[in-house]
Every structure is written in C-alpha cells, then in structure tokens.
C-alpha cells in the first residue's frame, strides 16, 4: 500500500493517493513531482498537472 509520504519525504493527501492509485502512478513517479503546497506538499492540482504532462510527453501511437 502507498504511504502517506513520498520516498523523498513529501506529504501526499488522501486524494492525491487515490488519484495516484487510480491512474497507475508509482511511488517513484510521485517522488519526482514538485509539490506546490506548504513544505512542498503535492496537491491535487500538482498531480493532475503531472498526468496532463505525462499524456503530452507520451502520445498514443497512431
């Protein structure tokens, strides 16, 4: 199960945790997200942005 902290020690809210699980984002990936919240907390906004960026970075093969 996912922990309440990323590997580099940043807090992940329950909502971010749920989104990560639903969208198959690993703990490793989470650690790479720059949190915009207090004390670099990863917020819903940050993870949704990450998912958006990921889509752009890996376009579906035609």
């Amino acid at each position: 199960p996912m922990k309440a902290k990323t590997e580099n020690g940043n807090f992940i809210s329950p909502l971010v945790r749920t989104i990560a699980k639903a969208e198959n984002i690993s703990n490793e990936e989470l650690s790479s997200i720059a949190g915009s919240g207090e004390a670099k907390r990863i917020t819903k906004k940050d993870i949704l942005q990450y998912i958006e960026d990921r889509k752009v970075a890996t376009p579906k093969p035609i």
Partner: protein
Amino acid sequence: MTYDLIVVGSGPGGYVAAIRGAQLGMNVAVVERAELGGICLNWGCIPTKSLLKSAQVFDYMKHSADYGIAVEGEIKPDFEKIVERSRGVANKMSAGIQYLLKKNKVTVINGFGKLTADKKLEVLAEDGSKTNYEAKHIILATGARSRELPNLPQDGKTIIGYRKALTLEKLPKSMIVVGSGAIGSEFAYFYSSLGTQVTLVEFMPNILPIEDEEVSKQMGRSFKKNKIKVMVNSSVESVEGTEGDLKVNIKNKKGEIEVHECEIVLSAVGITPNTENIGLEEAGVVTENGRVVVDDYFRTNVEGVYAIGDIVAGPALAHVASAEGICCVEKIAGMHVEPIDYTTIPGCTYTTPEVASMGLTEKAAKDAGHEIKVGKFPFSASGKASAAGANEGFVKLIFDAKYGELLGAHMVGANVTEMIAELVTARKLETTGHELIKAIHPHPTMSEAVMEAAAAAYDEVIHI
C-alpha cells in the same frame, strides 16, 4: 507621515490585515471613519448573533416543559434589553479591536481616507482638516452597505435596512422582510421568534437561494413551523402608507398583486460596495460591476494599491475578508503564500435550525459535469439530537465519484455552524470519503452525522 502599510477601513478585512502586517514587522496605520471593527463587529455578524442568542434562549423557555422544566407565570422577552445587550456586546468587541491594534503598535487615524493621483492617502478628519499620508503599500478595505432598490428607498422608519433592524425602539407587531439570504432569514427568524408576525418575500424559487435545494426546502418547512409566512417567486413592487401602517404590494408567484399590511418593511436585498469618493478614479484603479478588480494576491492594477473584503468580488463574509487580508499582507511581506481556494469557504446562517455549507451544491456539482456520490444523514436518526430534542435537519455530503474528492457539504440543524469547520479542514487537507468514514467521531454528538453521511454515500451507513 510615512508607513510601510496603510489600511483604509478597520473591518474584519482591514484590522486583521493591519495586525498581521505589524506581526511581520511592518510599520502600520489604519484609517477609519466610524467605529473600529467595521460592519462585522458593530452592525453585522456580532450584534445579530447576540440578538439571535436571546431568541434561542427564549425558544428554549417556550418549550421548557418538553425538558421537564415548569414555569409558573409569564415569560416575557424585553425587546429593549435584548437590543441593549446586543449593543453592549458590539461595543465590547469594538473596544477589543482598539486594544489589539494598540498592542500591535498599529496607528489608528480617524477620518475618511481617499487615494490621491500620486498614490498618497488623503484623510479628511471630522473637523474638516485634511492630512496626507504616504505608504509603500495601501490596502483598501472599505466594505459595503445595505443595497437600496429604487422601489424600496430606506427612510429608517417605514422601510429600513440592516442597521435600523438592529436598533429598533420597540418590537414591531408585523414586518415584511424582503430577501431571504442569510441576513434576511436571520432577521425574519429573530423577529418572528419574539412574536412579530413576519412575512419573508423571496424573488427566487427558494429561500436561502444560494444553498443546496434540499437545505432551502428544509428551511422553508422550518420557517413555516415557526409561523413565518414565506413567499417565494415573489417580489415587493411598492410600499405605501405611513409609519406603522403600511400597505405593501407584493407580486406573488402567480404574477398577481397581493396587498399586505404591516408595520415595517426590512429590505435585505444585498449589499453595495463602498467604492465612491475613495479616489479610485484619481489613482486609476480599475473596477468591474462596482467592485475593485484584484489578482490572486489582492493587487489592483495600480502598483502598491490592494483591495480586500466586501469591495472585491467573492462572497461578502467576514472570514473571507480576514483571510484575504492575511493572504495579501503575507504576500507583501514576501512569504510563500498559496492563493485562497474559494471552494472551501463556509457560509452560515444562524437561525434555528442553523444552516452551514461549503463548496458545491448538488445541482452545481452536476452542472459542472461531475459524476457524484451523495450521502445524507438526518438528525432524526441521531442519538444526540434525540437527547437534545433537536431532531430537525440533516448533513448532506457530495463527493466526486471518480476519486472520492469531497466537493460540498450542506447542513441544517442545531450546532451545524460549529460542525462545518471539520469539512472545511477536511477539504483543505484533500480528504476523500473514506477518511471521513473512518475518523472516529465522539458519541453521542451531532458531528457523528458527518461520518454517517459519508458512509451513506458509500452504502456503509449504520444508523439508517
């Protein structure tokens, strides 16, 4: 004189910004033309809640036999004393602000503040003298006043606004309240509870029209039980007659004109921001729809000039004004500041039963395209509510079906204005439904209904 920060207006926006500024090491002045503490402390939140407390105590007394307490003889609300108490509480709070400002070494400048073309602040004192002040940063926090409709001109005798409604000399026999927002509803409940025959007229299809429809409907029923006559889809067209003997023409929901008689009309149709004569034009500050335009950190288009509270867009609430003041000042001080998330702002109506809410209504959530899960728990199923004899109302929670995000909370009942804080903090901490279900709420409390409502959304509710 030169300051780091001058705040114009000492309401919950202004005085809080000033104190926070002083805490952060700024040299701060506040300009105020009237009482310290603004509308909130003197003519708004605090004196109304004081009146409402008297009404609540009176309600308990009316029903004391239900609790096994007998009264021999009559129970009489003394309207003059109730108003006097309310004024006393307001004055005490205002004096408290004076103390806090002094303690934080904030200079208080009495007078009417106005921006000048060169971004100074000109203060017109009561004696007619004018003084110019300079500051690196000027925050405008001049608040708002009761909105006047052309057909409801407030003369303080036949048609009155909020202020007069707080200080009537005697209890009117009958009153028509126009507008059923939080303020109109609170006055309607207060006067009705003391014995005034109240008619509440609302233009929209439901009272408390910004609330979730189920909340509005419940309050409509509660008000009717409380002998308030509620007219929705209706509007007051005109008022005729003389003081104490008015004929009010109301267009009812069928579009017909009904003539209602009453002693006094309270116009509670919203507010008008105080943006006149404060030098916005001179300094070139941009407004839109009568409100000062600001960015996420309350900066206007003019560098060094900021605006917060009731004169900017957003809900006109004291806690919003204070939060905006703190956000604005912390940003000025160079701190890392997150913008205010307006989807977590709670709104309360301190009637009996109380109303409290945060975030999206069911309709708004659907309109915004969310697929939602809704959980509702009625206080009729709550042990504490039964023990307290307060079974009216419910907690309704709205979650996004996809990830379980808490989108909205809507409550009616005793103490819900204290209970909403849990949901505000929970949303701030990005809860999902799961954590609310698993947070062990104390038994027996009204707050258990929050846990149960969340459980209801996920088909895990125990007590219904």
